[in-house]
C-alpha cells in the first residue's frame, strides 16, 4: 500500500566549537584521559555555580541569524531534572520556555532539483552530558565526565519532512551551515553532530499527525536514512495489521538495521523544568546581535548563487563546490591564482582533486596539492603547454611529490609539441610507415583517421597538440 504519508521532525545536537565549556572554564578538547577535563563545576561538586560562556551565546546567535530566525532579546536557562550517572548534577541546564533562537527556516534541494523550505521551531543552548562506558569493570559501568558541560545547540525542526531523503538533505544542510559558521566541527564520529528523529505516519490526506516515535542518537547520515526507513515500514506494518503506535523512544541498532524500544522499567519521565536560579536571564541588545551579524560569512546558498551567476557554473556544480566552506575556499583560491577559467577549475576540483582526496580519505584542507600548485598545473592547460590528458599524469606526479607542475613538465619533457613543421614531419613518417592504411583511407575508409591520430600521438609520446595534429592530418591524408 502506498497510501501512507511519512512525517519527520529532527532535533539536531551540535556541539559548539568553544575552547571552554558552557558553564565552566575547563577544556572541551576531544580525547583527553577520562575525567581529566572535568572540573568542580562539571562534576557538580557541592557549592559550585555556573557562569555562562559568551562565545557559546555568540555562536547560537550566529546560527539564528543564518537561518533567518528571531533572536530572543531575553532568554532563560532552565533545569531539566532527571537522574543518570553521566548527568552529574541530577539536572541538565537547558532552555525550555524562552530559547535564544526561535522561528527560523532553511531551504533544502530535493533529488529532482526542486526546493523545499523546512521550518526551524527553535534552537536553544544546553550542556552536554558525560559518557557511560559499558566495558566491563567487574560488572560495573565507568563514568567519564569530560564531555559533561560541553556546549550544545539543539536545533529543533518543524515536522516538515516527508521522507528519509528529505531528512538527510536537511541534516546535511545544517551540517554544512554549522561548519560554514565555524560554530561546530561537524565531526559525527566523535559525536559533535548528532540527531534524534521524530517519525510518524498518517494516511495520505489526513491532517492530524499520527503518533510519533523518537529515534535517539543518530550519528551518521546513512544511519538516519536507514533508521527512518525502517521505522516508517515498522509503523505502517503495525497500523496495517490493525495495531496502534505507542509513543516511545527507540534506539537504532546499526548492526541489525533495526530500531528497538528503549523500555525502561522506571516511571515515565517527568523532567520538572523550572528556571535555573543560579543563572540570570540572558539579555541581548541590538549592539551584541549586530556585532555577531558582522561576523557572518557568505552562506552556502549565497555562495552557490554567485558561482552560478558570476562563474557560469551549473546549479549542480555550484552545490558541490559549496558543500563545505573549505571546498569553496579552495576552489576560489584556484580561480584567483588562475585568473579565471572557472569552469576548468571547477572540473578539476570536483574531478581529479576530489577523487584523490577521497582515495586517501583526507580533507581538502589537508590536500597534498594546494590551490597555488593546482592553479599552476591548470595554467599549463590553458596556455596549451600540455594537454588535459598529460595534465592528469602531471597531477598524479604532483600528488606524490612536492614539485610544481612546471618542474615536472620540464624534467619529464612533457611539453606539448606545437611546432607545425615538427608535427608535419611526424605525420609524414607515419604515412610513410603505413602505406596500406593510407590507401584504404584514401579509398573512402574514413574511420581510419583515428588510427593515424593515434599513431602520431604515440610517436610523440602524447605531446603533440591534438588540434594541430588533426588539422595537419586532414590536409595531408587527403593528399
Amino acid at each position, binding site marked *: 500500500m502506498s497510501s501512507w504519508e511519512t512525517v519527520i521532525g529532527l532535533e539536531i545536537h551540535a556541539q559548539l566549537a568553544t575552547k571552554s565549556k558552557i558553564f565552566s572554564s575547563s577544556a572541551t578538547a576531544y580525547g583527553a584521559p577520562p*575525567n*581529566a577535563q572535568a572540573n568542580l563545576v562539571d562534576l557538580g561538586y557541592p557549592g559550585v555555580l555556573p557562569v555562562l*560562556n*559568551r562565545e557559546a551565546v555568540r555562536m547560537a546567535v550566529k546560527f539564528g541569524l543564518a537561518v533567518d530566525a528571531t533572536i530572543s532579546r531575553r532568554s532563560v536557562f532552565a533545569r531539566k531534572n532527571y537522574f543518570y550517572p553521566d548527568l552529574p548534577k541530577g539536572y541538565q541546564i537547558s532552555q525550555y520556555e524562552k530559547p535564544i533562537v526561535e522561528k527560523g527556516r532553511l531551504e533544502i534541494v530535493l533529488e529532482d532539483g526542486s526546493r523545499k523550505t523546512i521550518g526551524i521551531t527553535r534552537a536553544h543552548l544546553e550542556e552536554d552530558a558525560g559518557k557511560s562506558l559499558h566495558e566491563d569493570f567487574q560488572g560495573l*559501568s565507568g*563514568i567519564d565526565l569530560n564531555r559533561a558541560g560541553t556546549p550544545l545547540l539543539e536545533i529543533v525542526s518543524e515536522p516538515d519532512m516527508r521522507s528519509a531523503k528529505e531528512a538527510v538533505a536537511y541534516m546535511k544542510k545544517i551540517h554544512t551551515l554549522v561548519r560554514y559558521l565555524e560554530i561546530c566541527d561537524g565531526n559525527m564520529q566523535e559525536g559533535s553532530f548528532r540527531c534524534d528523529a521524530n517519525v510518524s505516519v498518517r494516511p495520505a490526506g489526513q491532517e492530524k499527525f499520527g503518533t510519533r516515535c523518537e529515534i535517539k542518537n543518530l550519528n551518521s547520515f546513512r544511519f538516519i536514512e536507514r533508521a527512518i526507513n525502517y521505522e516508517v515500514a515498522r509503523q505502517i506494518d503495525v497500523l496495517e495489521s490493525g495495531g496502534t503506535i505507542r509513543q516511545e523512544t527507540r534506539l537504532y541498532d546499526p548492526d541489525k538495521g533495526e530500531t528497538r524500544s528503549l523500555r525502561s522499567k522506571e516511571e515515565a519521565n*517527568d523532567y520538572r523544568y523550572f528556571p535555573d*536560579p543560579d543563572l540570570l536571564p540572558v539579555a541581548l541588545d541590538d549592539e551584541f546581535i549586530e556585532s555577531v551579524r558582522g561576523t557572518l560569512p557568505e552562506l552556502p546558498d549565497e555562495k552557490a548563487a554567485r558561482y552560478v551567476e558570476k562563474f557560469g557554473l551549473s546549479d549542480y556544480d555550484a552545490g558541490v563546490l559549496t558543500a563545505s566552506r573549505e571546498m569553496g575556499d579552495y576552489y576560489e583560491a584556484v580561480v584567483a591564482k588562475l585568473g579565471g577559467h572557472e569552469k576548468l577549475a571547477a572540473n578539476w576540483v570536483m574531478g581529479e582533486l576530489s577523487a584523490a582526496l577521497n582515495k586517501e580519505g583526507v580533507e581538502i584542507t589537508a590536500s597534498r596539492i594546494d590551490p597555488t600548485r593546482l592553479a599552476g598545473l591548470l595554467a599549463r592547460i590553458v596556455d596549451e603547454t600540455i594537454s588535459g590528458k598529460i595534465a592528469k599524469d602531471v597531477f598524479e606526479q604532483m600528488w606524490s611529490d612536492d614539485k610544481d607542475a612546471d618542474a615536472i613538465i620540464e624534467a619529464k619533457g612533457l611539453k606539448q609539441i606545437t611546432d607545425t613543421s615538427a608535427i608535419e614531419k611526424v605525420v609524414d613518417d607515419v604515412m610513410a610507415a603505413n602505406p596500406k592504411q593510407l590507401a584504404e583511407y584514401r579509398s573512402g575508409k574514413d574511420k581510419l583517421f583515428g588510427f593515424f591520430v593515434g599513431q602520431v600521438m604515440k610517436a610523440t609520446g602524447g605531446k603533440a597538440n591534438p588540434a594541430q595534429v588533426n588539422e595537419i592530418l586532414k590536409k595531408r591524408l587527403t593528399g
Partner: protein
Amino acid sequence: MSLTRQDVENIALLARLSISEAELPVYVDSLSKILSFVEQLNGADTGHVEPMAHPLADQVQRLRDDVVLEEDRREKYQRNAPRVEAGLYLVPKVIE
C-alpha cells in the same frame, strides 16, 4: 491536598529516595499537611503578576570570556569518590 501512599511512593521514586514501610505513613501525613498549608496561596489574586524567579530585578546574566583556566586535578577530585578505576567513576551497570 491529601496524598495517598501511592502518591508518596511515586514522588519518592521520582526523587530517588528509598522510604521504609514505617516512614511511609509519616510522609503521607506530613506532606499532605504541607500541601494543604501552602494552598493558602490560592487565595491571592495573581491575575496579572509576573512570576519572580530572582530577588533582584533588572539583573541580567554576566557572560564569561571563553578561556580555559583549568588544569587536571582528577586525582584530588576523585579522593572523595566511593569507587573509581582507571580514572572512571564506577557505578552499577547502566542499562540502556
